[in-house]
């Protein structure tokens, strides 16, 4: 379990403005929040509320227009200083694991090969856990040699979760992970995320439209028009 009260990330006055011609669209508006290590936080809100934009900034997939972000106590970016794509990549591969609505499994690779895919590009020194243990934890031990086309939607998302975990991330970002699944499979994935948080102490940030899925988190943050409601 993660030690209590150590901050996984802190955001101050984050703002993200997109320009569409002369018009400025404020996707994230003055958001400040902190997430402790081992927290399970869900972000909920209607479409266009800015939750995905916010999680992209928190997950170092994008720069904020203004504001600052600290990850593990270290300033990642501060006022008016944005990071290059390579700098963002270095932080991402050290800190984060991602799962998305679509699974993006490589159809010609087996389940195990898909899980090992991140190792083709980067392997953290501390990522010594046996990928088979992760697959067993996720109930996929009998599916390792199968191809994605032979799996159900829920199984495919669990493979995507295993892939996100293989490099031992500090924070797992899940953006609408059940968007392509029925309610039973959604519940199943919610349960997996909860287990990872409770048993492994993994910090989880979850974006969802689904209020019942959001309830599996310890804390829910509602967003409206880019602001915390």
């Amino acid at each position: 379990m993660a030690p209590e009260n150590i901050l996984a990330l802190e955001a101050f006055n984050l703002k993200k403005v997109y320009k569409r011609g002369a018009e400025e669209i404020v996707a994230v508006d003055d958001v400040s929040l902190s997430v402790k290590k081992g927290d399970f936080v869900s972000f909920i809100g209607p479409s266009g509320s800015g939750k995905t934009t916010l999680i992209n900034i928190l997950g170092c997939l994008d720069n904020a227009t203004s504001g600052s972000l600290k990850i593990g106590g270290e300033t990642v970016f501060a006022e008016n200083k944005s990071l290059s794509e390579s700098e963002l990549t270095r932080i991402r591969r050290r800190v984060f694991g991602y799962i998305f609505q679509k699974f993006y499994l490589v159809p010609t690779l087996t389940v195990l090969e898909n899980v090992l895919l991140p190792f083709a590009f980067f392997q953290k020194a501390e990522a010594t856990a046996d990928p088979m243990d992760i697959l067993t934890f996720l109930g996929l031990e009998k599916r390792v040699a199968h191809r994605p086309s032979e799996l159900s939607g829920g199984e495919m998302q669990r493979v995507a979760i295993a892939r996100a975990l293989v490099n031992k991330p500090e924070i797992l970002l899940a953006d609408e992970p059940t968007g392509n699944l029925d309610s039973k499979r959604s519940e199943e994935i919610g349960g997996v995320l909860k287990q990872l948080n409770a048993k492994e102490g993994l910090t989880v940030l979850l974006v969802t439209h689904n209020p019942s899925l959001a309830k599996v988190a310890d804390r829910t943050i509602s967003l409206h028009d880019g602001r915390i409601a």
Partner: protein
Amino acid sequence: MTKKISIYQVAYKNLLRKKTRTALTILGIGLSAWVLISLLGFNRGYESALNKDIDNMGFQVLVTAKGCPYEAATLMLKGGTGLRYMKESVIADILKHKEVQQVTPQLMAAVFDPNKGESGGINAYLGVDPVTFPAMKSYLKFKQGGWFTQSDALEAVVGYEAAELEQREVGDKMLIPDKNIEFKVVGVLARSGTADDGTIFMPLKTVQKIFDKEGLITAAGIKVDKNANMTELENKLYDLPDVQVVSMAQVKTTIMSLVSTAKVMVFSIALIAILIAMLGVINTILMSVLERYQEIGIIKSMGAMPWDVFRMIWTETVILCLFGGAIGIGIAFALSKITDVLIRRLLPYTPTGSLIAINSRLGLITLGVVLGIGLVSGIYPAWRAARVRPLESIRSEGD
């Protein structure tokens, strides 16, 4: 159980997604590699076959009656039509030069045979001197029989292929159409791999008599002293009236200049084939990158740096080219005989040996060229893939 996967494995398996497209691209590269190695093999093979033919002539200089140099070159190597004659006394004049070791007179005669093939054909007879000719062509071996019994006998020595074509053996009779004269086959030559295989040899005097060309010859083959100055001798021979001097070097240059036109054509075809294959590779890999746009973004979100993605896509190109190159080279080795036949149809004159000389060195060169082309073709698609931003792919999911 494996706990690793390499970029190369991922690249290879990526190509298996669209098997037909991958197979067609490999086929395109394979065909280009086939054309390329065959061309390189032809470049090598043609010259060596021509050299072999010239070496096997037994003489280094041919003197003919004045006329077209191309005809003379063809006459020298193959025996041709459009014959011009010179006096036999020229032999004595040639022998006066100290550089000349031996001279052999030849008289080529041709008649139309209405029974040859479907619509008739030409039968050619080469009258040779029974003393000097066998001495110069010491490499000729007999399958059956031997040279003529007398210098004016109605006898013939038939080349290996000519004997097969006419279905004649020693002791058989042959008829000269039009003249209605029969002669006897006294020897059948073993296969020499030269133009002699298709020739019917008769004593010079016999041919002169049958074709009313007494005292005339069409050519004189000259064996020159090894240490002689060829240019000096050629200049001296040109002092003889109404003759044309064709040296081995000249023949080679003449033939090679004729062939160069065909070579340019074949090189152009190879260049076009390579360009098409290159575009095919770019198209295949670019399509594959665009189809995997989101997936590449996810790979980058996993921690892949731009260079990793570039390398992965580049590897896909290299794999395509390796397979294509290997298949093309394999086809070239397997079908070199068919390619030989095709090229023979394209060229005005071809030597008798193998025209396509492919070896493992040429195979490696071709593979290197194909790989080089692949690496260049892969740059743009790989660069496009390396530039994909993970955010763009994720944004396309909505919200």
